[in-house]
């Protein structure tokens, strides 16, 4: 008799989600659904606010990655003001953003996913968390705390607050960096590097333990998207948005931010507040693409910093020029964290980082602005339209994790089909289904937003659920 197993709720992720697994008569998995159960409504309620309030308002979308929203938002505001910000401000914004990547990736790896990696997928759920891990692996947890602290302290020194700072503003930043703060952050870099080196060494050494996960956790081809700067390097702050196909061939390059609309559209799902973006030229659902650490390492030529590039070379040697398994998000995240620290060091050593003029001022000079940045979880786009007086009339937020919705759905199905047996249910089977979601490090409070003008879809399905006919209208 067919029945449904519900994971209510997915734990150790950011945000709210449930998973339903439909079993057929044999107890095998017939279908899965990923329900994101939270919607915020930001794009609607910001209508009428002055555009220069958007950075701090949109920061409240997420407490883990507020900096990413601040960055994408101020870039959209810069476009509305039609200013080119002073170079020191650009360096400072990139520095802040790198610090955020380090702390966010540390949270994801150590606090959220390491319990599965070290205690095991089947371990006692009561202990399978960062505090349980602290008892059995104290040094690793201390490392995780230290790495997150490095990032958060850097943010505090730069921006005045660890969470929801108001330092990044349209036109630049509102205070230059002091020598004292610069020296402090620089002095902490060696600790951060040594933590990441240790962790990479551990993870690479343990790869054999994760063979089954690498095989089955969202291991399937897809397109990939991410920002690449003009040297082909990894860049969290700016660059062109590059799409590559499953074989690593570039298929689209967006240099004018507003052109993202040519390549990204989205479909409504009946069972999730999170919509499903897809690559428009190919269509839904074949146009599935992934963003985030795995995708970024696939679309760039190289990181652009020495140690991260050495790690990247080894990573590509093991898994090929295009890594496909979503389990490798964890490995890619560590390489990105290393790049983040190295890039911070480069920026801190640039004497211009202490320059006093860090803000351009202007009024409304364009009625539309788009800001694209990479967030820890993927490409983030803020798109605003204003009236001549500066009031927001329309806003569109395309959030990192949202791009991965189709991939997450597909990965859940793959893991469930491989591990879940309705005839002999074990908690560890369900934990694995949740764990593949964790690999994407989703930020679900962030992700449930409007994307562009939604494509209208009408589907005709048979009683057995088979798709008979579909009409797409843009």
């Amino acid at each position, binding site marked *: 008799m067919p029945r449904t197993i519900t994971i209510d709720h997915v734990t150790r992720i950011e945000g709210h989600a449930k998973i339903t697994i439909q079993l057929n008569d044999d107890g095998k998995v017939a279908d899965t659904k990923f329900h994101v159960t939270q919607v915020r409504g930001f794009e609607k309620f910001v209508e009428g606010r002055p555009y*220069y*309030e958007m950075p*701090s308002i949109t920061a409240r979308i997420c407490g883990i990655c507020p900096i990413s929203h601040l960055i994408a938002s101020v870039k959209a505001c810069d476009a509305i003001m039609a200013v080119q910000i002073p170079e020191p401000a650009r360096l400072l914004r990139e520095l802040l953003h790198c610090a955020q990547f380090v702390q966010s990736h540390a949270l994801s790896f150590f606090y959220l996913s390491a319990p599965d990696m070290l205690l095991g997928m089947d371990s006692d759920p009561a202990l399978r968390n960062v505090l349980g891990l602290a008892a059995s692996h104290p040094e690793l947890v201390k490392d995780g705390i230290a790495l997150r602290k490095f990032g958060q302290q850097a943010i505090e020194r730069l921006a005045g607050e660890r969470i929801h700072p*108001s330092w990044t*503003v349209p036109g630049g930043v*509102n205070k230059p960096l002091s020598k004292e703060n610069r020296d402090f952050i620089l002095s902490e870099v060696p600790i951060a590097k040594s933590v990441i080196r240790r962790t990479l060494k551990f993870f690479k050494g343990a790869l054999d333990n994760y063979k089954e996960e690498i095989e089955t956790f969202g291991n399937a081809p897809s397109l990939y998207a991410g920002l690449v700067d003009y040297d082909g390097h990894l860049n969290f702050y700016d660059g062109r948005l590059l799409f590559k196909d499953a074989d690593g061939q570039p298929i689209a390059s967006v240099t004018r931010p507003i052109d993202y609309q040519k390549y990204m559209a989205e479909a409504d799902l009946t069972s999730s507040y999170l919509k499903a973006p897809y690559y428009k030229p190919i269509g839904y659902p074949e146009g599935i693409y992934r963003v985030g650490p795995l995708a970024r390492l696939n679309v760039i030529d190289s990181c652009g910093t020495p140690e991260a590039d050495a790690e990247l070379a080894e990573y590509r040697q093991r898994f090929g020029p295009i890594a496909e398994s979503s389990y490798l998000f964890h490995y890619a995240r560590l390489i990105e964290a290393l790049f983040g620290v190295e890039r911070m060091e480069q920026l801190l050593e640039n004497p211009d980082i202490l320059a006093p003029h860090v803000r351009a001022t202007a009024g409304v000079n364009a009625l539309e602005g788009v800001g694209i940045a990479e967030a820890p979880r993927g490409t983030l786009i803020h798109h605003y339209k204003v009236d001549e*007086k*500066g*009031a927001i009339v329309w806003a569109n937020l395309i959030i990192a994790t949202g791009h991965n919705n189709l991939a997450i759905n597909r990965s859940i199905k793959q893991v469930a089909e491989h591990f879940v047996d309705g005839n002999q249910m074990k908690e560890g089977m369900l934990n694995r289904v949740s764990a593949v979601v964790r690999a994407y490090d989703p930020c679900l409070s962030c992700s449930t937003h409007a994307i562009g003008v939604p494509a209208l879809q009408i589907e005709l399905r048979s009683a057995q659920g088979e798709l008979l006919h579909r009409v797409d209208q843009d």
Partner: protein
Amino acid sequence: MQPTLTIDGKTVVIEGERNLLELIRKANIDLPTFCYHSELSVYGACRLCIVQIEGRGIQGACSTPPEPGLKVQTTTPEIREIRRIAVELLFSERNHVCSVCVSNNHCELQTLAAKLGITNIRYPYSYPKLKADLSHRRYVMDQNRCILCSRCVRTCAEVEGAHVWDIAGRGVQSRLIAELCQPWGTSRNCTDCGKCVQSCPTGALAEKGYAVEEMTKRSEPITRLAAHRGASL
């Protein structure tokens, strides 16, 4: 013999002060105020400077003239509670989202709430649908943040002399309006001086382009100017 009264048991000499509040401040006792401004006409609306006067009950210190022999208490448990309620009701009446306000960390309402130890509002929020007026080329008026203290009204009328602002309506329907209830940017009398912005205790009036937490106000130049001109009616 000089005329005196007592404030919190202390004898204070009356030396031409215009109201009890001035005497209380002369005695170095701190009383919160929103609507009171030393150089503007007395409004007596916010009820924060209330004091207990023996034989007379609870009265506003700003609007009570000094009289010899009065016995004044500036803080009693009842007064403390009324002050608290007044501030909480202000928060409940409109949409004060401190975290994303241009005046965050520079706001008199926010600061007073913290000083009074207010950590939550015990009255149901009204969630009125209110807008921000961005029609002026330099300034913004956000109804969500207004506490109807009318400092802007009196500053514009009595110091600048333009009288752009007024308060229309009654009770919770009261609204600050520009001239004949029109967008501020269409005002004929506004001189763009910005004094109203500087006199506003919250983020209701602000200068465009000042992002969240950036709108700091400087009211001392206006106070000096007004005192110099003898603007008070």
